């Protein structure tokens, strides 16, 4: 079926920006669409000496919460992406929303979020993000999402 929701994971990298543009184009073509932009802050395992006043909260016992700084940066990435998408979107029936997620595994968080959005959710993502090395054709998060997703995934390629 034709999607009613598009989930765009972004980290502000070139491929992610290409994915944002693709999502906006698709939404323009379909007309009625909700685009959700997400940025995932990976939570690392807690180790006691890392805990400082910079830590705002602990989501799960074993995982260290992200710092205020990380949250601010992630929100900025999401806000910038929303703005870029809104510049391309033509129709009023396309809504663009954003969310910062915190999870031990970014890919799992993306797959779960897509599932939560329902059956008619399409994930649009870049071939690789900011992590890894430059020439990688398909990054680790993209690969994991492709394998783990329950619904369709559109991979946009960029350098």
């Amino acid at each position: 079926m034709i999607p009613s929701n598009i989930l765009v994971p972004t980290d502000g990298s070139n491929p992610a920006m290409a994915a944002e543009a693709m999502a906006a184009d698709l939404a323009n073509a379909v007309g009625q669409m909700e685009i959700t932009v997400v940025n995932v802050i990976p939570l690392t395992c807690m180790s006691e000496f890392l805990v400082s006043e910079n830590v705002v909260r602990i989501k799960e016992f074993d995982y260290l919460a992200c710092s205020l700084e990380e949250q601010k940066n992630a929100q900025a990435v999401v806000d910038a992406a929303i703005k870029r998408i809104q510049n391309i979107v033509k129709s009023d029936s396309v809504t663009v929303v954003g969310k910062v997620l915190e999870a031990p595994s970014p890919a799992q968080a993306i797959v779960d979020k897509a599932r939560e959005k329902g059956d008619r959710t399409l994930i649009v993502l870049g071939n690789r993000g900011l992590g890894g090395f430059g020439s990688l054709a398909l990054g680790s998060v993209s690969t994991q999402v492709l394998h783990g997703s329950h619904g369709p995934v559109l991979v946009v390629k960029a350098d």
Partner: protein
Amino acid sequence: MLSSKILVATDGSAPARVAEETAALICNSLEDCQIEVVTVIQPRRRMYVKTTPYSPESSDEDVKRARTLLSEAADRIRAKLTNPRATVYEQLLEDTSPAAAIIREANAADSCRLIVIGNRGLGGLAGLALGSVSTQVLHASKCPVLLVKVQE
């Protein structure tokens, strides 16, 4: 950039059929669009010809079977199309690597087509989340790839 040219790769498997349907639905949302439906024949190795180590050749039967598969796929796509400005055409490809053929075809004529493909085809292990051809296409394609998932 969303292309009005869509390439859908099929082998008649259940995920491929969902890919065909998805291509038609995307096409219906676009102003005008062309769907190219492709299937790839892998030439059989001629075992007893020693002079050439490898002789790509498909039997007439392979070609006939592939043509039938293609026209059935094209009919399924046409049945789902509501866009009067949509066109469907069939393309039979022959290559030892199906993924390479799909990628080459998507890039043909200087325009990057949107590739729509199922998560796995008829080959390989059942239960595999992502088949070998889909994986290769996802890695090597310069054009965007829409992977359609069918859960077993």
